């Protein structure tokens, strides 16, 4: 180094070093490698940390559970009751053991003997069988051959088989000889003996088995859930938990199930939501956040599925998670991605308040879906608040569409028929003039064929007319018939109502339209001027308002209507709140309405497209009578609309009662109510403008309006609204705000406690429903009619908005295969169809139909505590209770009488009235099938043979029926007015036609099981061996009756005649021999 010239350039090889940059690079590389490895293992796999946390917390929880369960087990095992049961079982088992062992030994010997002779026996049987056959096939005449073969057979029979025969003492008798017959006998006797021993063994240890079963029942009753051993097993798996990706290959063997449209669905949700893994957390454990000590954590997705019943029917293997909940089941690298809450994922996870939306995709045909209360409420709102008036929805009331289609078909068939009828004489003529017979016959045949076709067309038309009649009965409108506006309403009230809908009646179904004053005036003028003015209403004398109020509260009006405002409001929300009805309606009209709400002023002819008056009937010399039995148009013979399109039923009140109720209702008003005069409503110039507006805003979707009967729905169809891609939802000027999470009111958008964007379907629906004009804000419309038309729906109850949004979110174009859709073909289909009718007429306002469902009346103050007995009947077992044939008649006419109709047919003692709904035949059929299906009854119903009773039995039953132990007639009506004053139960005479015997027996022996809280007492009968006997002292005549007394009574009831019953009333109790300690 020293030899280098002083100025020589430095040798870079020896003087400079890259070690520093290399070092830095190497460090960077190492850091990068380390980072990438870390990211690979943890950064991209956040589920690992979740699993570790879960495993630790779960193991701690199980520690506690194991301890608790062990203590419980030792307590139960050492409990005197269990010890006694176990000891008894031990004793009986021990007592039986010696004999059991002996028998087992005998059986073992028999089995070895049977095995030993088995081969020889089969061989002998085969050989003899063969020789017998050979003998039998020789013809009778061939004597020598026959004899020779007989000889062979006898030789074979005399021959012996050698068997190593095991004896009872365990030794083997070598080469014991058996002939064929001996083998056969031995084998048969061995089998017989074995059967005998097995039976003996069963008898021997029966008592022990029963005792052991009792002990085990005690254990299972007192040790619910998992055993300590099972819990310990789970704890071991939790402690040894190996972080691993958990994924479900949904429906691996089935067709493709996928929200991407490709190969199978893979859900990895459980990798973080590990508590839903049923291998790790069995269904018997319901794991909550609190169980894991994470009650307050916002980041602990570890609970087990909170609805185990749902998971039973929607198994994870078949359904996975994301088909119901939404989200991106494959993504596991972040919560946002896994939950699919980013702009271009089409199925973001539903928020908690909208969880039920996931049900709708497959349950779109349901009106009521179990476990989906929010969704059910949403559907109900959609139907009842009138969304359906403007927005078509597949499967929702579409009778109007069917009717239009039926009418078109009828018209088409009419023209076909006309054509055919012209062709027939033409063809006949051609035949007459044909050159040869063959051609003539061909023409005649064609003419004849056409005649038959015409008769077929006639049949088809008749059926379509019948269908139209049914549809006309079924079509209901959400709002009232405006043709009657002039007869019914106070003139000045109409414009006030249109402009201040929700102020006048805060719970109305009618939405609030955004209208300028001149628009309100024009609409009011149109409604007024297009109203019917004749025939005028009959003038009604005043009634008694006090009695009217009583009737209003007693007859059940409150099941649908509410009365009172604010905190004083009472009753159902199905129909209008009547607090201010006196301000708007005309007394004479209310009387007619209460008396029969279905009564129309004029029938409507859908073919002539006009309302008919007396003059139309007079032309044909017909009286002006139109009802369901007189529903043909006098002019053209087609079906008329003869009823108001309302669901309100007839309560079959007398006209006096109707007047009393109307007199009460007319007093319901604000004392200071006043309305400005509205003379402009008579201005004919306003009418065309009003008509244009009424059409523009789609009023005819909910109301029947003169001239607009055939107006269609004006809104967009919403069946698949939840699937609409985000770019087709017009956020207008709020697009950027929505993406930034700023609400229209400037506040931040908050969901689940987090500030998030609302640029999604949920955000769009929520703000649209809250304020339907919101997406117009900041826009200029040169023509005001271009503005958004949708009125503000009246979603006044908390939860209404969420329910409706949930329903819309769930209204998606199904991505699942058809077989996932809930379209049951068995009796569940009847349940599904029936709910549409049940909710259409609000049967649940009065009745409890589903288990756990509450009616409106049940919660009213006048039906509490002891007054519960005044409630309408509970119908949870109706299908098993009544004869469906009877039920059809009852639903058609609940008074069960053609003359005495101002009463209940079955429960004449109830003040609350089962109304007449004028159901169509189809609706009755659906309801009856619904009740039958709800009670698992077979369909079709086959009427059983009426239960018979002998005269002796009848005499005994009569004594029993009137004995002090059977107070039946104290409560059950008999038709005797004096007696029935205290009646609280139906007449026994109805039983025969109305009830089914198996249900009746179950009812009288344990009514509280069928209807908890019923006035019918339990404990009337007790079990004696295999039959029921009376609990109380039994009449002398029955002391030696060995039959079932409940059955006897039921048969007596089903054979009861009016004469017999009349004789019973007032009959003194027969002598009884006291069986208790009471004594006389």
């Amino acid at each position: 180094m020293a030899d280098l010239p002083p100025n020589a350039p430095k040798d870079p090889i020896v003087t400079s070093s890259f070690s520093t940059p290399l070092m830095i690079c190497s460090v960077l590389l190492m850091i990068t490698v380390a980072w990438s490895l870390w990211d690979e293992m943890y950064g991209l796999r956040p589920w690992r940390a979740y699993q570790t946390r879960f495993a630790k917390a779960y193991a701690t929880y199980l520690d506690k559970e194991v301890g608790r369960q062990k203590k419980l087990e030792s307590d139960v095992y050492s409990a005197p009751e269990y010890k006694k049961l176990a000891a008894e079982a031990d004793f009986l088992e021990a007592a039986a053991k010696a004999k059991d062992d002996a028998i087992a030994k005998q059986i073992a010997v028999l089995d070895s003997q049977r095995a030993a002779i088995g081969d020889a026996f089969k061989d002998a049987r085969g050989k003899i069988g063969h020789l017998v056959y050979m003998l039998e096939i020789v013809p009778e005449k061939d004597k020598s051959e026959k004899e020779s073969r007989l000889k062979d057979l006898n030789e074979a029979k005399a021959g012996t088989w050698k068997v190593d025969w095991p004896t009872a003492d365990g030794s083997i008798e070598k080469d014991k000889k058996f002939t064929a017959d001996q083998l056969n006998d031995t084998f048969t006797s061995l089998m017989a003996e074995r059967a005998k021993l097995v039976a003996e063994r069963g008898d021997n240890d029966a008592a022990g088995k029963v005792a052991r079963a009792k002990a085990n029942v005690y254990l299972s009753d007192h040790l619910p859930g998992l055993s300590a051993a099972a819990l310990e097993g789970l704890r071991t798996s939790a402690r040894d938990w190996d972080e691993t990706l958990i994924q479900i290959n949904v429906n691996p063997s089935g067709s493709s199930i996928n929200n991407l449209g490709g190969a199978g669905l893979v859900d990895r949700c459980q990798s973080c939501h590990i508590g839903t893994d049923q291998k790790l957390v069995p269904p018997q454990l319901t794991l909550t956040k609190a169980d894991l000590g994470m009650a307050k954590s916002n980041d602990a997705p570890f609970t087990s599925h909170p609805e185990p019943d749902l998971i039973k029917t929607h198994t994870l293997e078949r359904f996975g998670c994301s088909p119901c909940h939404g989200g991106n089941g494959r993504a596991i690298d972040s919560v946002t991605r896994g939950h699919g809450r980013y702009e271009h994922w089409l199925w973001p996870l539903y928020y908690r308040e909208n969880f039920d939306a996931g049900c709708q995709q497959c349950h779109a045909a349901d009106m009521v879906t179990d476990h989906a209360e929010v969704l059910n409420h949403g559907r109900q709102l959609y139907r009842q608040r009138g969304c359906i008036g403007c927005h078509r929805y597949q499967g929702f009331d579409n009778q109007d569409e069917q009717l239009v289609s039926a009418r078109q078909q009828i018209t088409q068939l009419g023209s076909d028929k006309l054509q055919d009828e012209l062709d027939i004489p033409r063809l006949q003529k051609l035949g007459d003039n044909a050159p040869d017979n063959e051609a003539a016959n061909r023409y005649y045949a064609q003419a004849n064929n056409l005649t038959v076709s015409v008769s077929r067309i006639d049949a088809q038309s008749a059926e379509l007319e019948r269908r139209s009649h049914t549809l006309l009965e079924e079509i209901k409108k959400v709002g009232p018939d405006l043709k009657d506006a002039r007869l019914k309403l106070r003139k000045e009230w109409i414009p006030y109502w249109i402009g201040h809908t929700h102020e006048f009646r805060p719970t109305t179904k009618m939405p609030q339209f955004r209208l300028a004053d001149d628009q309100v005036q024009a609409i009011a003028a149109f409604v007024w001027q297009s109203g019917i003015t004749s025939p005028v209403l009959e003038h009604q004398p005043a009634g008694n308002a006090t009695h009217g109020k009583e009737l209003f509260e007693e007859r059940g009006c409150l099941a649908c209507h509410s009365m009172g405002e604010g905190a004083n409001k009472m009753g159902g929300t199905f129909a209008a709140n009547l607090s201010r009805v006196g301000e708007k309606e005309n007394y004479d009209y209310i009387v007619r309405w209460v008396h029969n709400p279905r009564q129309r002023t004029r029938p409507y002819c859908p073919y002539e497209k006009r309302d008919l008056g007396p003059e139309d009937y007079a032309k044909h010399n017909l009286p002006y009578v139109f009802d369901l039995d007189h529903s043909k148009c006098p002019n053209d013979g087609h079906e008329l609309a003869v009823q108001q399109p309302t669901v309100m039923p007839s309560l079959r009140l007398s006209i006096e009662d109707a007047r009393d109720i109307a007199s009460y209702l007319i007093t319901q008003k604000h004392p200071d109510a006043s309305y400005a005069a509205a003379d402009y409503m008579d201005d004919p110039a306003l009418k065309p403008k009003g008509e244009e507006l009424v059409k523009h805003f789609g009023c005819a979707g909910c109301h029947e309006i003169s001239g607009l009967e055939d107006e269609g729905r004006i809104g967009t169809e919403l069946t698949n609204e939840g699937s609409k891609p985000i770019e087709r939802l017009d956020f207008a000027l709020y697009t950027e705000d929505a993406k930034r999470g700023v609400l229209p009111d400037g506040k931040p958008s908050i969901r689940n406690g987090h500030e998030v964007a609302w640029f999604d379907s949920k955000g769009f629906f929520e703000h649209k429903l809250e304020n339907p004009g919101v997406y117009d804000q900041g826009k200029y419309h040169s023509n005001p009619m271009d503005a958004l038309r949708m009125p503000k729906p009246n979603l006044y109850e908390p939860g209404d908005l969420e329910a409706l949004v949930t329903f819309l979110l769930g209204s998606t174009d199904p991505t699942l295969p058809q077989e996932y859709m809930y379209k049951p073909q068995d009796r569940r289909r009847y349940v599904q169809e029936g709910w549409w009718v049940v909710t259409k007429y609000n049967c649940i306002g009065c009745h409890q139909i589903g288990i756990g469902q509450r009616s409106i009346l049940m919660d009213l103050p006048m039906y509490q505590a002891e007054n519960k007995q005044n409630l309408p009947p509970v119908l949870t077992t109706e299908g098993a209770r009544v004869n469906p044939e009877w039920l059809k008649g009852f639903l058609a006419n609940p008074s069960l009488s053609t003359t005495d109709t101002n009463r209940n047919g079955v429960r004449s003692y109830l003040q609350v009235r089962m109304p007449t709904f004028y159901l169509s035949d189809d609706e009755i059929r659906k309801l009856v099938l619904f009740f039958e299906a709800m009670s698992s009854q077979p369909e079709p119903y086959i009427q059983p043979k009426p239960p018979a009773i002998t005269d002796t039995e009848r005499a005994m039953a009569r004594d029993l029926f009137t004995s002090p132990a059977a107070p039946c007639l104290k409560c059950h009506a008999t038709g005797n007015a004096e007696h029935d004053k205290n009646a609280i139960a139906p007449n026994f005479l109805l039983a025969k036609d109305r009830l089914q015997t198996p249900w009746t027996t179950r009812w009288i022996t344990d009514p509280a099981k069928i209807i908890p809280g019923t006035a019918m007492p339990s404990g009337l009968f007790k079990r004696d061996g295999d039959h029921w006997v009376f609990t109380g002292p039994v009449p002398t005549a029955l002391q030696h009756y060995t039959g079932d007394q409940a059955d006897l009574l039921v048969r007596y009831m089903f054979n009861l005649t009016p004469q017999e019953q009349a004789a019973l009333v007032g009959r003194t109790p027969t002598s009884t021999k006291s069986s208790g300690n009471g004594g006389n």
Partner: protein
Amino acid sequence: MRIKWQAAIFTAALALTFAGCGGGEKPAPESSTAPASAPAGGGAAVDATTAGSVSGTVNLDSPAPTFKAINMSAEAFCSKAHTSAVMPEDVVTGDKGALANVVVYVKDDMSKYSFDTPKDPVALDQRGCMYSPHVVALMAGQTIEVKNDDQTTHNIHPTPKDNREWNQSQPPGAAPLDETFARGEVAIPVKCNVHPWMKGYIAVFKHPFFAVTTKDGKFELKGLPPGTYTIEAWQEKYGVVDQQVTIGPKDSKTVSFTFKAAGATGD
């Protein structure tokens, strides 16, 4: 926990370079606070040495309203059981306006103390087609023994708001019915559906500080631990009235209640 291969590679990779670059960022463990469930069994027994009592009378401010006699003609046995007219027991008064059948009780939550459920049953007799007594009070879990002394079948049908409902038939001569109520409730109406005039009430308490007045209108609540209480009086027709009372150790306080007959919102 077993060693996992991922962790093994990771550790090995790190070992090549510097130690401990970027330790696993595990989420902070949950602050595991013990569940704040109340200790089972309520609490301590009342200290008898310091316990006080509240006694007094209940009155009605005006004469009792007149009622129509009960018509028992629907059941021959019942009408024969009485020689004179039977009056409904909605309002029963004694001398000087003393009001009977009033349940007086401590309204406050007493769950910080524990109480023994009395072993002796409370009797409810059906005699002459009337309930005797008309109003009974008992502790939750205490047995009520319902007897039928009549030669007719009764059914006992309590219609509670917060307890389990039952409805049991009891023919003449049947063994007494032993039942309990699990939850406090003032007061459960009881009726016999067979004899609709038969009405009574059962008041159920989670503590033993209750009494039912007799015809002298008197009551006494004994063994109360020192403290301030709301004492409430319940009458089936007149509803409730209450008063505050503070009891020191071994104190005996007197309170009296007066129900107003006018303007009562009967049931």
